[in-house]
C-alpha cells in the first residue's frame, strides 16, 4: 500500500512537466499546473514515508506484473531509503515553487518547458533510485536522473560556458554509470541475482570484494563529488539555474552518498581498510573542498565547493561507521552513521537555502561575481537575513542544524580514543575537521560580508531589490527547518535510530539517546534563540531611540574612502591564499613594477578547479592528439585497403 502511494507520487512528479508541453509558449498555466502537481505529489509522498510503518529491509518490496528485460522489476523501501526520500520530495516541491518566481515561463519561453519536464523527470527518477530493489531498475532510474540532470544543467545551452560545463558533467556521469554497470554485473555474477540491496553476499573472493568496493566508490563518488572525482561539480552548479543547483547540491549529491551507504555493507561486515579509505577520502574532500571554496570569487562556485566539503564530512562519518562495523563498535556506528545521515539531511536543508538565496542575488543584480556586489543587506533585507542564517548553519554554528550533525561526527571520532583499539589514529581526523570548520567560518564570513555588507561596489548592486514571495517562501521554510532541527535535534533521533538499525539488520545497534543527550543542545539553543528574539525587539526600540546614525564609517583620517576601496573577499583571504598556494594552484598574472615611478600595473588572478584545469583537460587533449595522429590509417587509397585485407588474411592464417 505504502509502496503503491510512493509509486503514484513518483509517477506524478515524473509527469509533472508533461502537461506544460501542451500549452502555448508564453502561457504561465503549464508552469502553475506543473508546480501544483509536483507539490501535491511530494506532500503525499512525504506523508507516505512519515506516517507508515516501513519494513526493516528492502527485500520483498513490491513486484509489479511488468518485468524488465533482465530480472523482475522490484521496488522496496527500508528506513535508510526513507531517510533519503524525504529531502527529495521536499526540495523538488520547494524548488518548483521557487521556479515560479525565478524561471517564469513568460520570461523563458524557449527553455522553460524543457526545464520543468526534466525537473520532474529528475526528481521522480531520484525517488525511483531510492526505491529500486533491482539492479537494472536502479540503473535505469539512475541514468534517467543523470541525463535529465544534464539537460537541466544545460538549460541555457546557448551559452558556451554552459555547454562546456555540461560536457564535463556528461563525461563524469557516464564514467560513473559505466563503473556502476560493471559493479552490478559483478555483483550479479557473484551474488547470483539482481536483487538489491544485499547485506549478506558471502563467499566473495577478496579481490572481487575489493573490486566491487572500488567500483562502487568511484561510481557513486563521482555523483557525490568526492575529490578527485568532483571535477564536474563546481562549474556544473555554477552554470545551472539556481534552483537546479539547489536540486543538484541538495539532493543529487545525496544519491551518491546513498549508493556508498549501500555499497559498503554488501558483504555484511566490511573489511577495515574500507573504513580507512572512506575516512581518508572524506577528510581529503572536506579539506580541499573548503580550501578551494575559500578562494572563489563566483559565489555559486563557492557554494558548490562547500558542497564538496560537506560531502567530505559526511563520508568521513560514514567511514567511521564502517570502521565501527568491522571493529564491532556499535557506538562508532551509531555516531558515525547517525552524524552522516543527519548531516546529509542538514546539507539538503541549508545548501538549497543558500543556492536559492544566490538565485535571489542573481535575480536582483544579474551577476555571480561577489566583488562587484556589496551593500545588499540594506537593499534585499529578507534575502540577507535568510542567507545569514544559512551561512551560520553551514558554518556549523549553534543553535543551528549544521552544528548538531558535526557534533555527532566529532563525538564519534573522539570515541575512537576510548577503546584501546587499533583505530586510535582515526582521532587525528579531529584537528583537521576543526581546521576545516574554521576555514568554513572564514569562507562564509567572506561570502556574507562581501555580498551583503558595506557599500555597493557597482550600480547593479546599488539598485537591487528583494525578490517576490514565490522565491522567498521556500527559503523561509528551509530556514525554519534549519532552526528547528538545530534547536530540537532530539526529535529526529527516532528516525535516525531506525535507519541505523536498518543499515545492517544482522548487526546489533544502540540508540543515539543512549550515547548523547541531545536535549542539552536544545537547552543551550533556547537561550540563544530567546535572546535573539529579544534582541531583535530591543534593537528596533533602540533604533527609534538613542541610537544615532548620522555619519559615515570612521575612515582613520583618510579623507575620501570610496566604495571600491572596501576590503574585497580576495583581500580578506589573501594570507590564507598564500598559505594554501600549493593547494589552490591559481592562475595569476603578478604585478610587475619597474622603475622608480612605475606606470599603472595590473594584477589578475582566478581560481579554476586545479584538477580540471591542470590535469584532466591537458590529459584529454593529449589523448585526442594521439588519436588524431593515428588517422592516417584511413588515407583514402583503395590500394592500401586491399593491402589491409591481404595482410589480415595472412596474419589470421598464421595464428594457431
Amino acid at each position, binding site marked *: 500500500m505504502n509502496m503503491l502511494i510512493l509509486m503514484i507520487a513518483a509517477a506524478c512528479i515524473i509527469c509533472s512537466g508533461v502537461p506544460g508541453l501542451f500549452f502555448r509558449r508564453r502561457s504561465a498555466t503549464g508552469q502553475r499546473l506543473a508546480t501544483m502537481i509536483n507539490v501535491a505529489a511530494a506532500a503525499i509522498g512525504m506523508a507516505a514515508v512519515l506516517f507508515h510503518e516501513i519494513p526493516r529491509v528492502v527485500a520483498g518490496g513490491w513486484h509489479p506484473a511488468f518485468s524488465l528485460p533482465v530480472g523482475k522489476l522490484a521496488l522496496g523501501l527500508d528506513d535508510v531509503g526513507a531517510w533519503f526520500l524525504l529531502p527529495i520530495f521536499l526540495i523538488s516541491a520547494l524548488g518548483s515553487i521557487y521556479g515560479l518566481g525565478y524561471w517564469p515561463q513568460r520570461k523563458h519561453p524557449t527553455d522553460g518547458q524543457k526545464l520543468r519536464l526534466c525537473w520532474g523527470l529528475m526528481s521522480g527518477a531520484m525517488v525511483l533510485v531510492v526505491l529500486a530493489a533491482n539492479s537494472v531498475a536502479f540503473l535505469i532510474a539512475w541514468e534517467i536522473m543523470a541525463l535529465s540532470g544534464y539537460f537541466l544543467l544545460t538549460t541555457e545551452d546557448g551559452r558556451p560556458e554552459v555547454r562546456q560545463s555540461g560536457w564535463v558533467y556528461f563525461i563524469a556521469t557516464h564514467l560513473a554509470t559505466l563503473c556502476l554497470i560493471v559493479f552490478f554485473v559483478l555483483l550479479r555474477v557473484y551474488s547470483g541475482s539482481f536483487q538489491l540491496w544485499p547485506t549478506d553476499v558471502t563467499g566473495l573472493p577478496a579481490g572481487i570484494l575489493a573490486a566491487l568496493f572500488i567500483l562502487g566508490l568511484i561510481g557513486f563518488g563521482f555523483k557525490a563529488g568526492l575529490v578527485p572525482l568532483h571535477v564536474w561539480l563546481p562549474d556544473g552548479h555554477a552554470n545551472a539555474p539556481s534552483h537546479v543547483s539547489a536540486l543538484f547540491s541538495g539532493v543529487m549529491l545525496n544519491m551518491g552518498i546513498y549508493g556508498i551507504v549501500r555499497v559498503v555493507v554488501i558483504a555484511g561486515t566490511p573489511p577495515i581498510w574500507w573504513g580507512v579509505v572512506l575516512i581518508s577520502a572524506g577528510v581529503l574532500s572536506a579539506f580541499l573542498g573548503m580550501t578551494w571554496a575559500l578562494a572563489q570569487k563566483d559565489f555559486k562556485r563557492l557554494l558548490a565547493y562547500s558542497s564538496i566539503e560537506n560531502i567530505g564530512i559526511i563520508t568521513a562519518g560514514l567511514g567511521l561507521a564502517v570502521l565501527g562495523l568491522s571493529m564491532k563498535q556499535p557506538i562508532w556506528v551509531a555516531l558515525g552513521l547517525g552524524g552522516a545521515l543527519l548531516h546529509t539531511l542538514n546539507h539538503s536543508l541549508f545548501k538549497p537555502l543558500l543556492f536559492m538565496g544566490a538565485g535571489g542575488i542573481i535575480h536582483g543584480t544579474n551577476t555571480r561575481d561577489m566583488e562587484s556586489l556589496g551593500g545588499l543587506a540594506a537593499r534585499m533585507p529578507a534575502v540577507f537575513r535568510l542567507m545569514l542564517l544559512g551561512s551560520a548553519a553551514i558554518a556549523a554554528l549553534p543553535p543551528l542544524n549544521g552544528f548538531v550533525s558535526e557534533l555527532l561526527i566529532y563525538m564519534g571520532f573522539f570515541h575512537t580514543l576510548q577503546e584501546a583499539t587499533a583505530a586510535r589514529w582515526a582521532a587525528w581526523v579531529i584537528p583537521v575537521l576543526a581546521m576545516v570548520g574554521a576555514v568554513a567560518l572564514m569562507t562564509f564570513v567572506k561570502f556574507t560580508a562581501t555580498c551583503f555588507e558595506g557599500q555597493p561596489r557597482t550600480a547593479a548592486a546599488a539598485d537591487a531589490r528583494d525578490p517576490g514571495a514565490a522565491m522567498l517562501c521556500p527559503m523561509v521554510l528551509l530556514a525554519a527547518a534549519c532552526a528547528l532541527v538545530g534547536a530540537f535535534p532530539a526529535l529526529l533521533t527516532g528516525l535516525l535510530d531506525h535507519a541505523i538499525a536498518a543499515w545492517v539488520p544482522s548487526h546489533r545497534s544502540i540508540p543515539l539517546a543512549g550515547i548523547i543527550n541531545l536535549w542539552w543542545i536544545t537547552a543551550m539553543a533556547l537561550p540563544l534563540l530567546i535572546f535573539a528574539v529579544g534582541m531583535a525587539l530591543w534593537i528596533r526600540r533602540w533604533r527609534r531611540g538613542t541610537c544615532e546614525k548620522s555619519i559615515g564609517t570612521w575612515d582613520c583620517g583618510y579623507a575620501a574612502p570610496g566604495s571600491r576601496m572596501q576590503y574585497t573577499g580576495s583581500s580578506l583571504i589573501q594570507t590564507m591564499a598564500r598559505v594554501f598556494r600549493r593547494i589552490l594552484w591559481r592562475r595569476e598574472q603578478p604585478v610587475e613594477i619597474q622603475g622608480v615611478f612605475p606606470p599603472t600595473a595590473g594584477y589578475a588572478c582566478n581560481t579554476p578547479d586545479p584538477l580540471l584545469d591542470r590535469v584532466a583537460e591537458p590529459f584529454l587533449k593529449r589523448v585526442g592528439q594521439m588519436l588524431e595522429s593515428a588517422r592516417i590509417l584511413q588515407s583514402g587509397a*583503395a*590500394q592500401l585497403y586491399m593491402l589491409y585485407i591481404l595482410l589480415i588474411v595472412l596474419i589470421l592464417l598464421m595464428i594457431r
Partner: protein
Amino acid sequence: MIMILNAILVLVILINLFALGTSRMKALIHAAALQGVLLGLLPPLVVKDVGTLPLLMAAVTIVLKGILIPNMLLKALRDAQVKREVEPLIGFMPSILLGAAATAMALALAGQLAPAHSPLGLLVIPTSISMLFTGFLLLTTRVKAVTQVIGFLLLENGIFVFGLLLLSAIPYLVELGVLLDLFVGIFVISIIIHHINRAFASQDTRRLSSLKG
C-alpha cells in the same frame, strides 16, 4: 588428361607473370581474355563424363570471361583513351619477381596443401593460390581503374581454378550464379569507371581519395 590439365595450368601461370610484367593495357586485357578461355576449357577435362551440362558451363565461361568481359573493359579503355599503365606503385620487374616468388612458394607447399591422392595432380591448388596473389598484387600496386578490375578478374579466376577440385560439390545453379555475379559486377564496375572518367577526367584512382579519416 592430367597432362593437358597441367599444361594449361602452367600456361595460366605464365599469363599471370605476363600480366604482372606488361604496362600496355590492351595486352593486359587480352591476356586476361586468353586466361578466361583457357579456364573455360578446364571443367570438361576434369569431369570424367563430358555431358551436355559441363560443356554448356564451359561455353558460358568462355563466352563471358573470354569475350564479353574483355570487350566491356576495352570499351571502358577506349572512352578513357588510356594506352598504358604508368607509374605503378611497384615497378614491373619487382612485381614479376614477387609473383614468381609467390608461385614458387605455392608450388613448394603443394605437397602439404593438396593430399597426394588428389585426382587432379598437384598443380591445381598452387596455381589458384598464385593467381590469387597475382590478383592482389595488381589490385594493390596499380593505380588505373581498369588494371585493378583485371586484378579482380585474375583473383576470381584463381578461385575458379580451385573450384575445379569440387565441381561435383557445387551445384550448377551456384556456378551459374557465380558467373552471372561476376559478369554483372564487371558490368556495373565498367559503368562506374565510365562515370569516373567523366567526373575526374582520368582513370587514376589516386584521385579518388577525398574520403578519408
